[in-house]
């Protein structure tokens, strides 16, 4: 489903190129649950941002469902992304001024989905994560774990084919973290492709494949099965 070919990304420091990602080649198949691991500064987050098209690498190609992402026009690319990719952040990144309900609804607004359908889909999501009772609360009124659940619900509302997660449990205690990881596992079993970035071996173990980054390069890919 996803192919990254010869991805290079660097910053200039004192006239010298410092590589953040160096010749990354990877493939993600449908239904996979990939965990990206590596030390701080190894380029994990940048890789995830590139997958989410929040960031563009200096060099390289990105194919999503057979389309070369960087060849697309801004509008088409934006459409492709917002229909296919959901992102979950370490710091949840909910909009503080919006309620739980409205936060989950927001991505649908940008897809121009009619109000009645939005309502149905948000209700379904609230139901699925058992947060119906919290729909009118603001993020600041929720615990970290609950906020992250809202974050996941928001990522899933568009029914993405790919879910990207940047240390989704990094700000949570172990019990909350476990809960989130179980949700991910269930989602994967339902058919959602997931790429997560994580520090924790334990969380990485939930995945079907682990990619380890070191100094911007893929060290080795090991298959659990």
């Amino acid at each position: 489903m996803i192919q990254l070919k010869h991805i290079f990304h660097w910053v200039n420091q004192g006239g010298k190129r410092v590589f953040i990602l160096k010749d990354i080649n990877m493939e993600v198949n449908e239904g996979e649950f990939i965990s990206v691991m590596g030390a701080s500064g190894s380029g994990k987050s940048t890789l995830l941002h590139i997958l989410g098209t929040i960031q563009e690498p200096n060099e390289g190609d990105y194919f999503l469902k057979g389309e070369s992402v960087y060849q697309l026009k801004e509008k088409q690319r934006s459409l492709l992304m917002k229909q296919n990719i959901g992102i979950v952040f370490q710091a949840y990144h909910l909009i503080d001024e919006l309620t739980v309900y409205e936060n989950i609804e927001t991505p649908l607004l940008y897809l121009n989905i009619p109000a009645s359908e939005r309502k149905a889909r948000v209700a379904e999501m609230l139901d699925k994560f058992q947060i119906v009772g919290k729909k009118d609360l603001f993020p600041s009124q929720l615990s970290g774990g609950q906020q992250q659940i809202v974050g996941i619900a928001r990522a899933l509302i568009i029914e993405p084919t790919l879910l990207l997660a940047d240390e989704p449990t990094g700000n949570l205690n172990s019990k909350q973290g476990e809960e989130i990881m179980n949700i991910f596992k269930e989602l994967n079993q339902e058919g959602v492709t997931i790429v997560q970035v994580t520090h924790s071996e334990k969380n990485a173990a939930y995945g079907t494949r682990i990619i380890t980054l070191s100094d911007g390069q893929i060290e080795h890919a090991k298959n659990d099965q």
Partner: protein
Amino acid sequence: MFKNYLLLALRNLKKQKVFSIINIAGLTVGILSCLMIFLFVQNEFSYDNFHENGNNIYRVMRVAERNGNRETIPYLSPPYATAIKNDYPDAVKTAVRVMPAGGLVSYENVAFNEKEIYFTDADFFSLFDFKLTAGDKKTVLQNPGSVVLTETAAKKYFGKQDPIGKVLILDKELQLKVTGVAKDIPTNSHLNFDLVVPISNYSNSDWFREWNNNNLFTYVQLNPKTDVDKLTGSFTAFMDKYVNEETGEKTGLDLSRLEDIYFESAGPWDQVKHGNLNVVYIFMSIAFLILFIACINFMNLSTARATERSKEVGLRKVLGAVRRQLVFQFIGESILLAAISCLLALGLLQFFMPAFNSLLGYELQGYWKNPNLYVFIAVIIVVIGLLAGSYPAFLLSSFSPVESLKGKLRLGTGGAFFRKVLVVFQFSCTVLLIIGMMIIGSQMNYVRTKNLGFDKERSVVVKLDNNEIWTGMNRFKQQLQNNPSIENVSLMSGAPGGFHDSFTFQVEGMPGDDLQFRTVFADFEYVRTLGLKILAGRDFSPAFPTDSGQAVLINRAAAVKLGVTPEKAPGMRLRNTMRDSVSRTVVGVVENFHFLSLRETIEPMVISGSMDRRVAVIKLKNGDPGQAINAIKKAYTGIAPVYPFEFEFLDQQFDHQYQTDQRQQYILSGFSAIAIFIACLGLFGLASYTAVRRTKEIGVRKVLGSSTQNIVILLSKDLLKPVLLGTLIAIPLGYAAMYQWLQSFAYRTSLHWWVFAVAAITAVLIALITVSFQAVKAATANPVKSLRTE
């Protein structure tokens, strides 16, 4: 989507209370000022636009070359109208004469001294669209013995009774039956009357047939297809045929469009309402400045807050928002703010309108029904929304999502620099307004306190404006002179500040061009009553019985014009070509005095004893003026019993000439205060924003041992620099602008350096107080608290 934005905007407003209040308060006050000025400007430009045939109506003006200047005079004599209608039957549809006058009007036992009576031709109400609530516009003035009153005037005489058919008596002789009632004259009409009486009452008088008796206005309605330039071109022949042959003068004739009359500078004698285009422009610039200052606040606070909202923007981008949607969201937010402010401003407008009306000196009516008001508001909302919202909108939407999510935005120098530039602008405008206000104030003070060259204190002016007091004026004067509380009485054609007509004089021994002099016609007490100084020769004196017919006094300026020193002037002989058949001898020269307002230079003047008495100037002795005024009243009512006694103090009457300037001063002061208020509101917001943003830094500095004082200076310095720069820019601009304004006065205060210093210090001081208020608050906070929040 829209609902989502709206909700978010409202929640943001609620969450950021200080910013919202500053934004809304600033915008509301700004919009309120703009609305008031808009209503004023709109009224000024709407003068006489309600006449259906307005495009074809013109006022006929006489044009004269005087001392190389083209002067237009609105007064014509009665025969013009008839002759114009007769000579140009194709071009001129109707010609209507309007003679403004005053008179005593009585009904049963009530009597009023009416000042706004128009004597007009019968088609007055057909030509002009002054609506009649009773009577037919074609016939109301058909009969000489008829009169039309305005609703207010009718109520004054008849109360709730039906006025139609009632009989009013004008000047105790002329019986006038009420045939019609007119709606009250709209504010935006240059013509303004209380009663209209047919001019046909005078058509048999001798003066009505004289070409040189110029005492009324003539309005013509041309046929729509008339070539106006061609018509005015042919007026030279017309004037030569009727007028110039007789008088030997070279007077021309011209037409002024009805809608242009209001802004015409037709000289001080034109009795209709006039406006000043410059004042309108000044007001418009002020409105623009204030709105600009308020918009700057908005932009500044929004960009300052941009970092806080950057996370939201980044998120929305990740969630699929394209830039256009974000721009739309932020501009929408500022439009919402503008709309809220507009609503508040409209509410406040209702509340402040009476005060504004009294400041203007007239009532702006029916503004709620004015569709332009709503168009203006819609335009303001959109313009402010776009102007104030676009910079933050484009700035915010240009953030890279990764950076804004990581919270390491490099907004830094660019935005801060832009904010500073805006503050510089803001304070330039503010200081400019303060300078304007102060210089107008000091000029007004100068004008009021300047030695005018005559004694204006304790002098009472009584008009000799009715037949009884006029015929009994010598008795009146005699009685007053015998009164112990009165020092002197002089009867004259015009008191200082009043009417001083220009006449052409022939100087004996100076062949060639005749000279123009201002004139006053007065009795022998003129010089003594006004306390003028005789430079050479002597005053008029009863010891020389020929003085009244054969002598004149001149002022110093006249001596200069005659080319002699004041000492040499006595003995020269001059003749008023219009009024005198023989020359008069100059018997004395008086020092120059300001018989016109200080806008004008002192012109050469001739004081002569010819018969033309319109006012009495009565100089009171020291002591209780009330007693003296009672004595004058007693003498007046003894001679003219029915006429209400009216008087004015000479100094007050003289100061009336500066009424418009005085109003301008008040209004400018008000708006300057508003501008300072809005600018400081913005500064306050910026200061509190900086303080919040630097809380941690302040905490660390304090822990490291910095004193409160140092921190206050640190925080204030940054914001005061642009204020100082703005002030520096404003000073030369203010100097140039006010130098220009002062040119309209012939006698003016000098532009003292301290005015600029005071203006600058005021602005900086207010800014300093505003900024340091926040800085002190931040600096005195407990550092432990501020560090813990991180």
